[in-house]
């Protein structure tokens, strides 16, 4: 299964998806098809290896969730992207950005999504136990947002 075949099967099966051809196939997926596309990538494209899932804060452009899944046998790597609403810290509204969780598809997404929630504040729907993984549970704010200063004081230790 080469990159071209992957691109063609994606194009015919998913309409709203834009594909950038190249060594890693960069696929931007609309939010509502996020889990469906991941399921499709795992079954028909054979991308069973879950590499990582993370997020990028484009300030006003909104939060972007990035996931990389690979097909180890044919060395095909897929980089899935989806754009969410900007985070409340910047855009002023108080509703946290939501995204469908990939845990039902890839069990490896469990800790990765907890880290995205911890660092960006993205709420992943029907994630088994969405709580902070790296910082203490009493931590205010989501550090990796662009609006969070790098060394904000934290009494009593800083």
């Amino acid at each position, binding site marked *: 299964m080469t990159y071209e075949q992957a691109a063609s099967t994606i194009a015919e099966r998913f309409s709203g998806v834009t594909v950038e051809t190249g060594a890693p196939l960069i696929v931007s997926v609309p939010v509502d098809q996020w889990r469906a596309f991941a399921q499709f990538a795992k079954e028909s494209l054979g991308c069973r290896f879950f590499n990582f899932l993370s997020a990028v804060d484009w300030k006003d452009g909104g939060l972007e969730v990035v996931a990389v899944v690979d097909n180890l046998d044919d060395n095909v790597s897929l980089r899935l992207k989806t754009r969410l609403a900007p985070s409340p810290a910047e855009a002023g509204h108080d509703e946290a950005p939501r995204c469908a969780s990939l845990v039902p598809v890839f069990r490896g997404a469990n800790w990765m999504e907890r880290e995205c929630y911890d660092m960006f504040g993205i709420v992943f729907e029907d994630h088994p136990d969405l709580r902070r993984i*790296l910082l*203490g549970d009493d931590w205010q704010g989501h550090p990796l947002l662009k609006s969070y*200063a790098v*060394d*904000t004081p934290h009494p009593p230790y800083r």
Partner: protein
Amino acid sequence: MAVKAPIPEVPAPVWRSFKDLQEFEALRQQRPEGDKHSATFESLTEGIHQFPGGFVVTTLADTFFNWARKSSVWPVTFGLACCAIEMMATFASRFDVERLGMVPWASPRHSDLMIVSGTVTIKMAPMLERIYAQMPDPKWAVSMGSCANSGGPFRHGYHVVKGVDRVIPVDVYVPGCPPPPESLLNGLLLLQEQIAHFRRTGQRAAPNEKVD
């Protein structure tokens, strides 16, 4: 946002042989509560001390006890990060700490020294404080590596404590990132010399309110 680094006011350590007994006596009076012996023994020595010429007895006794404490300081294995790997190399056979009478021990209950090797994060600080508190009393602390000394390369990270002396009183600071085993051994020798001479900095670096 230029953040000026606070300079902790750690008094200059005094590690040289004594000029005379008066200086040993002065240091003996200042020693912290943890270094003293049991209450009965202290009252006994005070009695002998008032006796004319009694200070010779008590000073010799203290020197002997300090020598005993110095030559068997057991570090608790408290490895946090990269410095822990260098600490392991120091515990291993090439740079052996057992020559100094230090047996690396896993539980704080049997150890006298805590070598803080690695970055102290805000989530880890209460644990570190609890383990230091659970160590029996004459206890010392060595801050190994620039992360433990002052936060090091991660000083401006939001989750990093700017130096372990904000959490526990530290006696010897070992510079380096990571400090090679030779400089850790040098730090441990300085600690032993400090134990033998009672002089302990022990003071917690008070955080500078203006900056923090």
